[in-house]
């Protein structure tokens, strides 16, 4: 089950991250997971939110460059070795992860991770085959 991530281009300038968060916050969009990849002059903000469609519309209306990206959110046992066991499944099956990051809040007693794969469909097949629990879009909206 894919979920939608929003990626936003940000220059390395004072207040830009704050601008995005304020814009989303004041319009009732809740950020569930977040990470920033940065280079010397710019960064890419990646977020999972409860209302993706209205969030991207808001961002574009406010002159941000923002795109949707398909990602998968998986549940990992919140204990030593929990993540390692899932990553081993990927390694054994030649699934390449482009990047990953954690959720802002906890979901039951499991840790939630957002993963961007080189080949999302293939990754999903492997996840299903090895019974790794994934989180649906609906569940994220209800968080």
């Amino acid at each position, binding site marked *: 089950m894919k979920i939608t991530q929003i990626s936003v281009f940000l220059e390395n300038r004072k207040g*830009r991250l704050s601008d995005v968060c304020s814009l989303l916050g004041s319009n009732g969009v809740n950020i569930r997971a977040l990470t920033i990849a940065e280079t010397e*002059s710019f960064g890419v903000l*990646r977020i999972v939110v409860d209302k993706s469609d209205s969030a991207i519309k808001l961002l*574009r209306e406010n002159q*941000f460059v*923002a*795109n949707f990206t398909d990602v998968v959110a998986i549940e990992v046992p919140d204990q030593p070795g929990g993540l390692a066991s899932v990553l081993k499944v990927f390694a054994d099956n030649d699934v390449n992860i482009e990047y990953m990051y954690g959720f802002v809040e906890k979901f039951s007693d499991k840790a939630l991770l957002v993963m961007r794969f080189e080949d999302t469909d293939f990754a999903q097949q492997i996840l299903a085959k090895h019974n790794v629990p994934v989180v649906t879009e609906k569940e994220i909206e209800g968080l």
Partner: protein
Amino acid sequence: MIWKEDIETLEPAALKALQGDYLKKLIPYIYENCAVYKGKLDAAGVAPDSISSIDDIKRLPFTTKEDMRDNYPYGLFAAPQDRINEIHVSSGTTGNPTLVGYTKDDLGLWSDVMARVLCCAGAVPGDTIQIAYGYGLFTGGLGFHYGALEMGLRIIPTSSGQTARQLKIMQDFKPRIIACTPSYALYMAEEAKEMGLDPTQGNWKIGIFGAEPWSDSMRDEIESIWNMLATDVYGLSEIIGPGVAQECHHKDGLHIFSDVFYPEIIDPQTGEEVPEGADGELVITTLTKQGIPLLRYRTRDIVSIRREKCRCGRTSPRISKIRGRTDDMIVVRGINVFPSQIEHVLVGIEGTQPHYQIIVDRAAHKLDQVEVLVEVDQKFFSDEIKRLNEIRDQIRKEIQAVLSVGVKVTLVEPKTIERSMGKSKRIVDKRTL
């Protein structure tokens, strides 16, 4: 349709004879009525009655922008102020502004050459034109206005700015012709898309764009985004305003109205004429103007010229699109750099709109640094840093290949590079030379 068909299709020998007749009258007129030019002609050893043909033009002294500023306000006028009907002033970034003045006959000349421009672009009597050049002290708006009046077009004088209203007027009154700067044409397309309009369904079918240099690749982009014929108009206020030269629908050079604006192409360093087809500085003599006639005015625009007859039937020489300006041209580590070269690269890379700025800087005891700011476009944005870096590196490599100068490319957020309604500021030179 050719507006002044008898003049615009003259055989070369007849054209030369006409130009010679004009010059024979012009030199005594200037000598008697303008003290500054009397001094310049005396210094150059040109007796006012010594002109026998247009070829004598090479003996005349050049006129520069500095001459206009130094003799501000009235020094270069040959007609007394009570015969001047209209003046235009352009702001100077340094020193005095530039003042130009038109007699009633000069305004008639302007109307005539602008009617030729409109016809050359494809206008026919009965067309509607939306004039989105600024009205006022800038010559763009009124120049088009006079030409459109002369031709009998229906005029919508929107002037520049207020983009949402420009687009509504286009939809409501369906003008077939739009006249504005090329960068504003692209800007309006962006605004149209944001308003939910499809520019390819717009009403404008012919664009007459000028007042700033633009490339053929920018033309391709405007034509596809607006689904129109985009033509180039050339002019400068010192000569008349818009109305010096215009492309016909073959888009194969701009027809310069050489019966009244005599062109020469020179090497800006030596002042010598360059061979036909070679790039050089455009120099213009106004053969019939009365208010401020100018001899061999150095436009600082770099163009080439071709003299063979055009497929449209016009025999006037054709100048190339402006390849750069002798003063906008920046010299970086000894290499001439024109913004149009960088623009060409950006349009060539898929998805990159030409919104860019070139920043040249030099740290103490260091080489010149060139940084090109490029706005990130929705079309090539990626969530992956490596993809964005690939695009940035591709832009950098291609610019470096064209310029032979190392550059740094920085991706910036959309709409952070200043858009101008008039002329765009493509180069920021921070060097203290």
